[in-house]
């Protein structure tokens, strides 16, 4: 086994990121460049897209063809759904969600953003910060992506001008300040020519920062997950009822945040009953200690009635248990939100009936202004109050993504119609101006 380990890339870190930008900012080209320069494009893919490029009467290789996977996309030359790409360097494994820039597909951007450690916001150096860049940045902050990179692309078309780059940087920084976003990295680049993507190139000598690949490989991500509060939603109860394992009752699930040790005092929610961890069982043997996001089987000292939908937490790190809460809702369905209807909410491993009892406001994602609203249509984002039939065991999204997020399902069509993020009760964000203040974006 040791020989294998040395050949393989071993157990390196996994970084998930999204690329977002306007239609022609060159997202697909950037991804193509990352794959190409990190030697992750295969020969048959390269020869297929070279063939297609030539067939369309163009020269060279159109790297954007790599990610445009569906027939309709190739016909229209646009990206219409999230495409996932995989590549590896000796330092890390990467999963890219390539999300579309078209307005009608904002929902896909939210989908791709929900699991990302990092977002690359692409800006065309010729056009500067556009409405769509603002919208994507707002969405990234709303979904709470921990790291943000602003890639000022197409520098080749502005003569690699430092002045242009600095102007865009200060425009963007002013906007980011409104969202209280910090720790943004700005990188000038040409995805087409490869400058500052993987290689530095020789056209941007005035830029002393990192290349995009340097950043992706080295940015610390071990604090992206909540390591403090133990949350264990029960997925499945294992009762083999065999002679040998007659009394075995294992609670199977994934540690969503925090860590647990044998002997720790735990509380079962919503019932509030308490016990201690007896064993942490895995297929490979017993553990003394386990951390998020490990999937394990827990046994406890006492015989309690625990089933799917319940949550085990450490007795001294309790979340809230509530039947009414406020949340930011991103409406994803073509069928508008109907406040008179009952919906289903899936939160951790629990599905409950829910009612939107109040719409506080809708956010104009272009101006960040709040406006009054009676309904939400597709791609609308706003703050609502929800009532649920059974109590949810939850945290604020800002504090804990896993226990602060939920989806809304239409009971009639079974479609996923909205994504929700639980907000602190009564906390209304801005504190000052009613207009473009700090909204409920959960920035870093």
């Amino acid at each position, binding site marked *: 086994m040791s020989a294998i380990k040395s050949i393989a890339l071993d157990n390196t870190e996994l970084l998930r990121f999204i690329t977002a930008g306007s239609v022609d900012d060159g997202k697909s080209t950037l991804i193509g460049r990352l794959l190409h320069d990190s030697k992750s494009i295969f020969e048959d893919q390269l020869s297929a897209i070279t063939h297609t490029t030539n067939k369309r009467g163009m020269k060279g290789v159109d790297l954007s063809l790599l990610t445009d996977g569906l*027939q309709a996309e190739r016909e229209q030359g646009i990206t219409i759904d999230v495409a996932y790409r*995989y590549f590896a360097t000796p330092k890390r494994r990467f999963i890219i969600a390539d999300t579309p820039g078209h307005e009608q597909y904002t929902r896909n951007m*939210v989908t791709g953003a929900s699991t990302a450690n990092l977002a690359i916001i692409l800006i065309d150096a010729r056009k500067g910060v556009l409405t769509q860049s603002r919208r994507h940045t707002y969405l990234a902050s709303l979904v709470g992506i921990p790291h943000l990179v602003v890639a000022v692309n197409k520098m080749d078309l502005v003569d690699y001008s430092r002045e242009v780059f600095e102007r865009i940087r200060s425009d963007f920084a002013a906007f980011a300040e409104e969202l209280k976003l910090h720790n943004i990295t700005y990188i000038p680049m040409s995805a087409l020519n490869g400058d500052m993507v993987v290689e530095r190139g020789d056209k941007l000598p005035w830029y002393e920062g990192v290349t995009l690949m340097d950043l992706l490989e080295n940015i610390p991500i071990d604090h992206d997950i909540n390591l403090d509060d133990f949350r264990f939603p029960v997925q499945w109860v294992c009762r083999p*009822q065999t002679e040998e394992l007659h009394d075995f009752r294992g609670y199977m699930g994934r540690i969503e945040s925090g860590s647990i040790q044998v002997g720790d005092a735990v509380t079962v929610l919503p019932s509030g009953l308490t016990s201690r961890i007896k064993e942490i069982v895995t297929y490979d043997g017993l553990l003394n200690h386990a951390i998020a996001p490990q999937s394990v089987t827990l046994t406890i000292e006492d015989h309690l009635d625990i089933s799917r939908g319940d949550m085990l937490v450490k007795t001294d790190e309790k979340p809230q248990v509530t039947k009414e809460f406020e949340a930011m809702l991103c409406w994803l369905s073509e069928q508008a939100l109907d406040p008179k209807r009952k919906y289903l909410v899936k939160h951790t491993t629990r599905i409950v009936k829910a009612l939107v009892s109040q719409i506080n406001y809708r956010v104009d994602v272009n101006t960040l202004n709040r406006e009054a609203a009676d309904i939400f249509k597709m791609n609308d984002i706003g703050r609502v109050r929800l009532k649920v039939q059974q109590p949810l065991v939850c945290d604020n999204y800002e504090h804990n993504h896993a226990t602060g997020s939920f989806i809304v399902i239409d009971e009639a069509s079974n479609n996923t119609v909205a994504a929700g993020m639980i907000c602190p009760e009564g906390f209304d964000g801005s504190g000052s101006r009613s207009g473009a203040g700090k909204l409920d974006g959960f920035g870093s």
Partner: protein
Amino acid sequence: MDIILSDMQEFITPVPNFVMKSEPIVLKRRPVRQLGHMDALESESIHILREVAAECANPSLLFSGGKDSIVLLRLAEKAFRPGRFPFPLLHIDTGHNFPEVIEFRDRRASQLGERLIVRSMEDSIKQGRVVLRSENQSRNAFQSITLLDAIAEFRFDACIGGARRDEEKARAKERIFSFRDEFGQWDPKNQRPELWDIYNTRVHAGENIRVFPISNWTELDVWEYIAREQLEVPHIYFAHTREVIRRGNGLLPLSHLVQPKDGEQTENLMVRFRTVGDMSCTCPVESTAVNVAEIIAETAITRITERGATRMDDQTSDASMELRKKEGYF
């Protein structure tokens, strides 16, 4: 026609050949604050399998004897032991499978003590449900019909499969929980949004969900996992001498289905299979890799995609996988 190796209706029998390890794991290194990529992928897949089991009324797991589904079985063990799998294994046998793989399939299912259901395309052909132009035609695309028939027969509301997003462009856009309508069809433009890892498993009667727990794994991840877990795979995955015919850009294995055409010569080459599908269209690659470590080394530096190298049916058009998936293919 129904091979049942064991019955899982009764949950009270112990899992054969499974001994709960009650010894603590001795950690070779300090406890870490973050999981490595392999552990993270494994945990994500286990979480997905448990969600299917808990929320779907009648799931099944597609097991072909290929490497991806071998990995799925190990993940299912990790997800459900010391209990039994809460679903049967299902194989759609095209009748053109490699005999070594079929032998392996039966042996593995029996070792695990889980129920294996086999539905064969031969039966669909006899019933007139599948009409082939010629006896030797690739049967890959027609699997969908037999699969959909099996789904209807057993009323499966979810089928777990070993497809990966790195395999092909259309797959790269597919959700982990992929909804199919009552005709088994995939509508790529109208997929359910999939946020965080909260999965919507709800379907109406007659519809079903395809679930891909190893969506985020790459070919290299699969081989690294096979090495790490010391999983047995059919030996045609390893380099061996085989009589092949060069056709187009690929090599085709000589068999009763594939014979040299005029002007074609057979050659004896050292080859291995990267996928093990329909014998009439699955091409081996030239290789000297005789063990898992050597396959990992080759995979890490290979310059051709898995399907590009090995599947003639994916090369017919730029969108052939997408078209087949719309028809109900896995």
